[in-house]
């Protein structure tokens, strides 16, 4: 968030004025994730472990999107405005994000399994891993595509991505994360 340290940019009124409209927009976007979640209430009630995984699904996609978007934004701010598919630096970012996603979503599957041992669950480790890694891979691809499109798009439109683009993109990834997770989960559990 931009602030030059002057007292006027630190007034309560100016902070609320810039931030509140954005919060309302973000709420409207993420509400979609909530609607999907409540539609899946029966699935979540039957398989409690799926509910245990939901907050991490919501958080991790957004976190990865924030990491990649801010790295790409910094590149643009530093004047590296070309997106060349032969650029090794771009590939390093993509590889790192995919590797992080696979690590976290594998651990999420294992973590959910361990929780299931305590609270009692009918879902086996392979099923949980299939759900978490399956949705995690899809979320990682989404993160890469959205982050590139958003930072490049806002650079082209002359908007500073730090202010609005990153929060909106991370919220969208949250929404698609929940939708993808529930779709993969009901597919795997239904098999």
């Amino acid at each position, binding site marked *: 968030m931009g602030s030059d340290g002057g007292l006027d940019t*630190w007034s309560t009124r100016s902070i609320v004025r810039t931030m509140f409209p954005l919060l309302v927009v973000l709420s409207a976007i993420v509400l979609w994730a*909530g609607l999907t979640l*409540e539609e899946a209430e029966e699935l979540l009630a039957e398989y409690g472990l799926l509910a245990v995984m939901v907050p991490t699904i*919501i958080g991790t996609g957004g976190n990865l999107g924030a990491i990649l978007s801010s790295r790409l934004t910094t590149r643009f701010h530093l004047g590296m405005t070309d997106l060349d598919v032969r650029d090794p630096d771009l590939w390093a970012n993509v590889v790192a994000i995919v590797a992080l996603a696979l690590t976290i979503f594998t651990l999420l599957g294992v973590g959910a399994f361990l929780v299931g041992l305590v609270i009692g669950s009918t879902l086996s480790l392979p099923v949980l891993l299939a759900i978490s890694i399956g949705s995690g891979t899809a979320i990682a691809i989404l993160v890469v595509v959205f982050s590139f499109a958003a930072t490049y798009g806002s650079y082209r439109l002359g908007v500073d991505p730090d202010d609005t683009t990153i929060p909106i993109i991370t919220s969208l990834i949250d929404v698609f994360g929940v939708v993808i997770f529930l779709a993969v989960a009901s597919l795997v559990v239904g098999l």
Partner: protein
Amino acid sequence: MSVRSEAWTIYRQALPILLVSLLGGLFAGLVLEEMVPKVADFPGLLVMIPVFLATRGNVYGALGGRISSGLHQGVIEPRFVRDDRLVNAVVASLVNAIGVSIVIAVLTWLVLHGLGREVATLFELVAIMLISGVLTAVVLVAGLLGVIFVGFERGYDPDNLVGPVVTTLGDIFGMLFLLFAVVAVEVLVP
């Protein structure tokens, strides 16, 4: 640098933060699992949860970002004092967090009504969001400022602390206070 070593550097820097928020997320998930049966009493509750968690991250992430910029620029001191900038920023985050909590309840109620789906009373949804929003605000503001100040004094870049602290504290305390609010409203509204 080669793709492999550059990717490894990014991976190593980001992993600890993501691991901490994974632990917070799993704990929040346990609380969510407890809450699923309560949806029968308060239809719309599950709709509000992702929005509630996401806005906590946005509001307090912005507060943390502002405070770390202020510390870097030297316009804020790393202490709990009555400083105009600090007080303004904290008050603004409280207004934003509590204001948007009410917006979430109203928006959920309107959308579910519009879709013709079952929904709790507007009063119940607003009460749940207000109680959990206020309690989460107190813990998050105190915890976030505490961690940033102590971290800054010990030489950590506060920018790197804000993200993990906000997601982890927000997930854990957000869900705990949400469950508390649901139980409280169950008792208060027979």
